């Protein structure tokens, strides 16, 4: 199997290295990279805008370019998250948590360096999986029915319940708020509208990009405006030498990158579980297994490396079910298949054998595209860092402008722009009250999948709850969930016996390193 895969891959490189394919692949990743840096400008809108351009193209070039936009955008997406606390794409929201504190500590450059490394490793792993194991992995993917997905989401929610820094109670409250926000919209099982208050724009639910940009980007802006002096970023203006992550940082990032990669690959196989869920789950896992979880949220390099690796391996892995079965895993994949249909190519289980040039050319182009992205981005890190030297009064208003444009472009509705601003104000209030917004996003991302698949599993089992224990994969996830809660309770019990209850412990940690309270007038 391995030798045929290698022969096919060799053939794929032959296709991808043809000058016109190479050119379009470059155009794709370049545009994707740009789109990634612009806040709110989504991959979906970029692909839809450029799709008409592909009509005149050969079908291989068309697919290589459109796919390039998708994974290229992920490279750009981390940059603003780390430097400006601005999650341009939902998967990178979680990168803000540690990336931005790192920037404030003057280590934004090395955070970007680690990000690029993590991205490349994650993507490479995703591609390798696709080359050698696509047929096997598709079988694994089909094993994930409603019960399995539901159990996995439950595990994700439990692992992530301590995503926030500070008070665990506040963290749980925020997760619950996220779950409620995720319920807004039309219920899949009955068609009933929930929490829409008669506002028709809410029938589609709250846009995740509006929530991410509002809670992180805009809330942070308002906070900075209110501060007596702007955040000191002079330390962030680093030389090229400082951008190279130190050996120590590389060592700290090594395992997290691998763990993130594995979680990302797993998530990519499960239909409808894209990079966003992957990056949140991997961050939460990393924090959970870390020996020093209190460092997370205050500039832990692992907190950047792990979710980024996860995002990128999920993005590449996303193509596996889509290309092997011809059934799109998410909306972006659907759009790519749609482009193929318009080219007169019918995606389906036979795509791989009927159009080997397309399939293997695409995979080969992934490698080429990722290398191009590294070459494009690593020298640019210095340039991005310099962006922080732009005076505050110019940088943030223009970022705000780009946010509005980007959110508007997502589905052409002014309602979403207003929603982003309102959520931003709300996020600011939360920051002032010392509630951290990350768990809201976690609940929002995982909750709807949990509910939808729970109810689907209940219909299929005719209301019999034992289905979750009878199915092995779901039973394993449930056992892990139970173990997690058990360990937590045990730890709490031991802590209450051995040491006097330190109510102010979290508070102290917060005050030590959190700039949120430190900077206020």
């Amino acid at each position, binding site marked *: 199997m391995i030798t045929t895969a290698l022969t096919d891959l060799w053939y794929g490189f032959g296709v991808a290295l043809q000058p016109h394919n190479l050119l379009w692949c470059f155009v794709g990743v370049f545009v994707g990279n740009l789109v990634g840096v612009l806040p709110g400008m989504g991959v979906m809108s970029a692909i839809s805008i450029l799709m008409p351009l592909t009509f005149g193209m050969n079908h291989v070039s068309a697919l290589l370019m459109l796919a390039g936009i998708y994974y290229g955008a992920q490279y750009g997406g981390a940059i603003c998250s780390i430097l400006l606390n601005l999650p341009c794409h939902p998967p990178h929201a979680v990168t803000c948590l540690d990336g931005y504190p790192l920037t404030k500590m003057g280590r934004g450059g090395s955070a970007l360096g680690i990000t690029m490394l993590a991205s490349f490793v994650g993507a490479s792993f995703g591609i390798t999986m696709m080359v050698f194991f696509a047929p096997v992995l598709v079988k694994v993917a089909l094993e994930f029915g409603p019960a399995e997905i539901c159990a996995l989401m439950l595990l994700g929610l439990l692992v992530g319940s301590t995503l926030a820094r500070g008070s665990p109670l506040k963290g749980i409250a925020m997760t619950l708020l996220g779950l409620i926000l995720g319920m807004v919209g039309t219920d899949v*099982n009955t*068609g009933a509208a929930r929490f829409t208050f008669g506002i028709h724009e809410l029938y589609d639910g709250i846009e995740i990009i509006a929530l991410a940009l509002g809670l992180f980007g805009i809330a942070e802006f308002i906070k900075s405006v209110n501060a007596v002096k702007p955040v000191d970023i002079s330390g962030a203006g680093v030389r090229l030498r400082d951008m190279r992550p130190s050996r120590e940082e590389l060592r700290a990032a090594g395992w997290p990158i691998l763990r993130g990669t594995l979680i990302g690959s797993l998530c990519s196989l499960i239909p409808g579980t894209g990079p966003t869920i992957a990056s949140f789950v991997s961050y939460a896992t990393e924090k959970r297994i870390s020996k020093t979880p209190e460092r997370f949220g205050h500039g832990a390099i692992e907190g950047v490396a792990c979710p980024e690796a996860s995002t990128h391996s999920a993005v590449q892995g996303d193509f596996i079910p889509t290309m092997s079965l011809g059934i799109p895993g998410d*909306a972006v994949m659907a759009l790519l298949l749609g482009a193929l249909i*318009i080219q007169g190519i019918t995606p389906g289980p036979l795509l791989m054998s009927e159009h080997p040039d397309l399939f293997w050319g695409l995979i080969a182009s992934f490698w080429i595209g990722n290398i191009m992205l590294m070459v494009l981005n690593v020298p640019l890190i210095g340039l991005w860092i310099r962006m922080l030297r732009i005076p505050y009064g110019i940088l943030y208003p223009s970022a705000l402008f780009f946010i509005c444009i980007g959110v508007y472009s997502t589905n052409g509705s002014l309602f979403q722009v207003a929603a982003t601003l309102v959520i931003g104000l709300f996020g600011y209030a939360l920051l002032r009250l010392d509630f951290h917004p990350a768990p809201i996003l976690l609940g929002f991302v995982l909750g709807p999948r949990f509910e939808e698949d729970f109810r689907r599993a209940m219909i*299929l089992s005719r209301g019999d709850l034992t289905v979750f224990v009878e199915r092995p994969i779901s039973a394993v996830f449930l056992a892990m969930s139970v173990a997690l809660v058990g360990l937590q309770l045990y730890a709490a019990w031991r802590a209450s016996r051995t040491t006097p209850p330190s109510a102010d412990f979290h508070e102290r940690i917060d005050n030590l390193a959190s700039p949120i309270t430190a900077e206020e007038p």
Partner: protein
Amino acid sequence: MKRILACVLTAVLAVAGGGASAAETFPSRSVTVVVPFAPGGPTDSAGRIVARGLERVVGQTVVVENVGGAGSTLGAGRVAGSTPDGYTLLLATSSALVIAPHLYRNLRYDTFKSFTPIGMITEAPFILLVNKDAPYKTLAELIAWGKANPGKLNYATPGVGTVQHLSLERIFGATGLTGAHVPFKGSAPTLTALMAGEVDVVIETPNGALPMIQGERLRPLAVTGAKRLPALPDLPTLAETGVNVEARSWFALLAPAGTPAPALTRLQAALQDALKDEDTVKAMRAAGFEPEPLGPAALEALVAREYDGFARVIKEKNISLGAPG
């Protein structure tokens, strides 16, 4: 100062001039076709192919905008509430026009009052599919299996109140089968669930079903049209198997009511031309659609007929939104 004034005046005149010419030659800017389903499904494919065909005929960009949700009523509502200038059109399916009015309260449109027909694009029967390893190889065997195991079958649909849902209800009703309805978000995940063996029965349009049949991932049992499909000549129709149900999906292009007559006439002619265009026909066939152009009058009659038909089914089967399954 004079130069600034001159610039401003020129700009104003240019804008005014643009407005005047817009009224004369429709369309003078890009046209949006709202596809009321998520990208990637059959409606989306058809919409994009037709948009491309229209683009060639009218010489302006035709953008597809996906506004999915609530059984396609959101997209339909969006178009019904848009300015009736011919620049926002709806790619309608039976869901929004002939089913939703019987299921949804407070719809933001009325099938007959909110829209003006431009024309029919295509119609297609459904293919009844089962898992490739299922014990039943024909429809008769499926019915026998279902009767031996009452209530055991699960049928997946793209959502409550979709044509697939109601048609499957009719098929189950006519054959005496019983089972549970498992709604998904769109048709793509129903195929994955069928392939994985999570559910037992799905009906899907030929464009989505044929690749899965050719790839031997799913097994077809019957076609729901009046005659057999040219692509699958051995596959019997429901009627041939003694099940007296006919179900089809269709795609039509509509404009909001009140669209000015010149724009409407232009669009009606453009659609007919686009559907005769060789490249469009080729693209449609490749995607599994057969162009079935129908004029506005014939379309209106079909809508009226199906509107009453579905009203009966929904009443008989007592289907409503907000109730489980």
